[in-house]
């Protein structure tokens, strides 16, 4: 019979292989799903996973989608490593867009190369302040940061709505709930003409590299990992848990805020109620898909963006339901979590012995 047996230490091999296994299993399950729906399965999978890779334009769209996902996921991965669960990146994303966007609108008459950096700073601060709320409540009152950060997403969504219905509304916009379009100084420069590929993509690449260096080489990355693995040992090492909580929340808030500002000052170009489209939540999947490692997150973000672009393409080409993208993302996380058991466990084939004794009972508890 097949038996699950605990490994002596986590398998490095499985750590890197299971994301790929999960992708393959998602494709297979997708094939089955389309078959049951009566749609051409191979065509659908091709449209989702391969067609977007065949044109320059869809590749740049891929990068545009992947940018906020990667930025947010990198911020989240710090906390997730330490066992600090910021689920509210979506709210921090919105607050970044609101604060950065407000600066752009306040300086509507002003041109200058310093406008955009100022917006970035405002966006980062906005995200950090929003993330500071769950951090403070956790440290001061031991409030559950998962709930607090998640609730603040809805507060942020409504706040954005109030603002674009009120003070930030375009005076010449016929009462539509949206802000003015940002002017040129307040919009991210485009990298490739006639596409939406913007400067934020480059910034994201830089962030990936810096984050990698911090995680691998810096004592801060070490502290975060130690706190996540063994809180008592982290304390023994002299690392302050409260400082790490602040650090993780402020970092993830800053990066989510920056991503929000990039979205507002990039592809969207103004503040609208529909600005948040769930990047903050999808980034959670990206962070785990990438093994909480910046390079992995980079690849995971590209993959997740692919399902967005491909899913949309397939919806249009084959008139699939709009839930297709979400279903694929959900399946991907499901298979990833399921195959992750192989990191700490392995399958062993136990043959029944033709012994006078009954076979040994199958259990996990007797490893000692």
């Amino acid at each position, binding site marked *: 019979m097949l038996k699950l047996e605990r490994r002596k230490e986590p398998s490095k091999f499985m750590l890197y292989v299971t994301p790929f296994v999960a992708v393959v299993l998602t494709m297979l399950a997708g094939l089955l799903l389309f078959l049951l729906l009566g749609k051409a399965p191979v065509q659908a999978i091709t449209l989702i996973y391969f067609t977007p890779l065949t044109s320059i334009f869809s590749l740049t769209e891929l990068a545009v989608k992947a940018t906020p996902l990667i930025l947010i996921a990198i911020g989240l991965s710090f906390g997730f490593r330490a066992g600090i669960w910021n689920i509210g990146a979506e709210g921090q994303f919105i607050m970044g867009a609101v604060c950065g966007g407000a600066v752009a609108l306040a300086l509507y008459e002003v041109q200058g190369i310093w406008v955009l950096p100022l917006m970035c700073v405002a966006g980062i601060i906005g995200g950090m302040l929003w993330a500071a709320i769950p951090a403070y409540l956790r440290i001061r009152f031991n409030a559950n940061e998962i709930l607090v950060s998640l609730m603040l997403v809805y507060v942020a969504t409504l706040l954005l709505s109030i603002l674009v219905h009120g003070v930030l509304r375009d005076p010449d916009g016929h009462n539509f709930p949206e802000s003015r379009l940002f002017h040129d100084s307040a919009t991210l420069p485009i990298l490739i003409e006639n596409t939406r590929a913007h400067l934020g993509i480059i910034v994201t690449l830089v962030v990936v590299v810096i984050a990698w260096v911090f995680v691998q080489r810096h004592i801060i990355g070490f502290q975060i990992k*130690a706190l996540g693995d063994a809180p008592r040992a982290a304390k023994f090492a002299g690392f302050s848990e409260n400082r790490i909580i602040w650090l993780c929340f402020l970092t993830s808030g800053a990066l989510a805020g920056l991503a929000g500002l990039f979205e507002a000052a990039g592809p969207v170009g103004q503040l609208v109620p529909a600005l948040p489209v769930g990047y903050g939540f999808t980034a959670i999947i990206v962070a785990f898909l990438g093994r909480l490692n910046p390079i992995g997150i980079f690849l995971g973000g590209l993959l997740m963006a692919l399902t967005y672009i491909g899913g949309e393409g397939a919806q249009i080409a084959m008139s699939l339901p709009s839930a297709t993208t979400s279903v694929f993302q959900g399946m991907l996380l499901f298979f990833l979590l399921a195959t992750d058991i192989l990191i700490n466990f392995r399958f062993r084939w136990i043959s029944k012995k033709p*012994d006078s004794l009954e076979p040994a009972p199958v259990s996990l508890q007797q490893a000692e």
Partner: protein
Amino acid sequence: MTNETLLTLSGLTKQFPGVLANDNVSFEIKKGEIHALLGENGAGKSTLVKIIYGVNKPDAGTMLLNGIPFSPTKPSEARAQGIGMVFQHFSLFEALTVAENIELGISPELAKNGLRERIIDMSKQYGLELDPDRLIGSLSVGVRQRVEIVRCLLQDPQLIIMDEPTSVLTPQEVDVLFQTLQRLRNEGRSILYISHKLEEIRALCEHATILRGGKVVATCTPAEESAKSLAEMMIGSSLTLPQRETNTPGDVRLSVEHLSLKNEDPFGADLQDINFEVKSGEIFGIAGVAGNGQNKLMEALIGERFCDGASKIQLDGKEITRSGPNDRRKLGMCFIPEERLGHGAVPDMSLWENTIVTARERRQLSNKGFINIGAAHEFAEQVVNDFDVRTAGIEHAARSLSGGNLQKFIVGRELLQSPAVLIASQPTWGVDAGAASSIHQMLLKIAREGTAILLISQDLDELFAISDRIAVIANGKLSKPENVKDLTIEKIGLDMGGQSQESEIHAEA
């Protein structure tokens, strides 16, 4: 003692992934004898008694109980056939009373009518005084053990398995336990007595079976052997006992004054006005039964928690009362906590990463916040080589090492930082005799080189072997330290029971 055999084990073999825990184990337990099962950690003692008690099933081999084949598939079956067990780690609920705990742990038929009275009768009969209405949380460890024993006796067992029963007791409590055990033997019951304390086995047991690497390596009559010869059978090589030279202590390096600390655990002990000094070149031992404040004292000395009010801790004359663990390390303090996995080491990190946990300042493993991976690797290799840590490599996770090897790694990591003051809690707990002896040698060596060592231990043999002075912690208070040569086991035992109230008022150096 009769010559009838109660339990016969023949050819018991049990394979676990990667380790043959029992290899063709055969021996007999006679009726009315106390039979010792001796062996180092990992020799297979626990696996063997779990087979007898029906927790594990053997892969091969048979057992006969009173001549009838016996193969329990679960503990309740073993109990029904007259096997009882008193575990090393008690399975009692602190928030329930003695009677409630006993009721939960026995079969429903036995728990009916008049259980309270039977508990009182039983405890009187065997000299194990118990009040059935006391909360477990309010009882000392020794009394908790009585609860376990009474619970076991209520089932009228023929064979009682006792796993390291004295490791949590004061010497006086040990005497009471031995009287009880002898009374049980005289009634014709048999006792399988697991221990690695050789003197008590020599005093108590008629026969001994010695396990090493899962095999029976010897059977003997303990009274005819010396503790040294028993130990050598256990570890399979000759043993060098630590050599202590008399040395004159130097200046005070660690001084603790009026240390108090509240315990957040309602059943745990608060530290109350603890005072002591440790001098250069000295090993200062703190004895005590587990749960009397040792953990809090360790936390306070590491700096994981700051102490209350008037507490004052000084290292080489510098006040460190409000310094965190890292600042204390910078000034020369190193620590060996009792729990290795999860406190002394991060389980999922590799050995070289685990050097960074404590040695990054003193061994310059980081520079301006960036980790010097080369230096950390080098230091980890040095620890592994110098302290004979058996591992496939420093890239392997701490949790993949056996307990004894990880302990050697942690001890090595701290000692190689040449500490001014070393605080060690239970440094040889669960370590095999050979490694324990080498750890003792190392401690003596760095003490000779001027380190002040504070040794917190529950093992009196260890404390008497290497300490210069000993104090006892009981219920969060520290007794007056005494020179080892002026002390007896009996005196320490009284303090461990918290009975010498007058001597704890103050303790000057």
